[in-house]
């Protein structure tokens, strides 16, 4: 399992190549890429800055990836999350899950994203014409994570 928090952009082809290298049992790779958008909550967004909690971030991501692996026995996964200042159109997060068959790959990939959105310590600050603002957590993200019936770990 590869987990990385980095300023640099990721290369999807290269990450898939590393994930599957020498593995002829991989039948499926599901992936997700999240992007910085140019509009959010009705305002133009010219840039955003991602802050995180160094030390906890990697642990939190590893914990939720392990939960996914316990539920859907996939072969391997890669999770890369960027930090720092990003512009609209820039990729923010990459989740790759390799498995024998597609069902496990899709489920684990979506689970990891939903869990990451609610439990990995990242925060976004957006630059808009009205000034800077912290992005508020979405109820829809909590609902998406709750679909999987996570053990309660939040306050």
């Amino acid at each position, binding site marked *: 399992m590869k987990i990385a928090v980095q300023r640099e952009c990721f290369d999807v082809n290269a990450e898939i190549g590393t994930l599957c290298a020498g593995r002829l049992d991989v039948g499926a790779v599901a992936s997700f890429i999240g992007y910085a958008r140019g509009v959010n909550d009705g305002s133009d967004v010219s840039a955003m800055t991602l*802050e995180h*909690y160094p*030390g906890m971030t990697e642990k*939190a991501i590893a914990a939720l990836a392990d939960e996914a692996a316990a539920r859907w026995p996939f072969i391997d996964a890669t999770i890369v999350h960027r930090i720092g200042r990003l512009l609209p159109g820039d990729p923010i997060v990459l989740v790759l899950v390799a498995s024998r068959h597609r069902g496990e790959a899709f489920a684990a990939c979506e689970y990891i994203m939903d869990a990451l959105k609610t439990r*990995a310590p*990242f925060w*976004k600050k957006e630059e808009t014409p009205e000034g800077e603002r912290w992005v508020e*957590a979405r109820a829809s993200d909590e609902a998406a994570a709750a679909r999987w019936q996570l053990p309660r770990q*939040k306050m």
Partner: protein
Amino acid sequence: MTLRLLYFARLRERFGMGEETLAFAGGSVASLLDLLRARGGVWAEELAPGRSFRVAVNQHLATFDTPLADAAEVAIFPPVTGG
């Protein structure tokens, strides 16, 4: 005992600091929050019951009744918004 406190994102800005070291008589996360609220101002406001924030103890998400040991790292932050 002594705690290391960390604040992130909007709370870091509101509190005007990213971290501090705090003498603490002992107890749970709830006791610590009471102590911080007693500072009044933005502390009382942002940490008021019903406000939305998270607490991690030694880098794991915690609940109000999580006990705090000496030298614990306690982080307080808004709900996360990554991904």
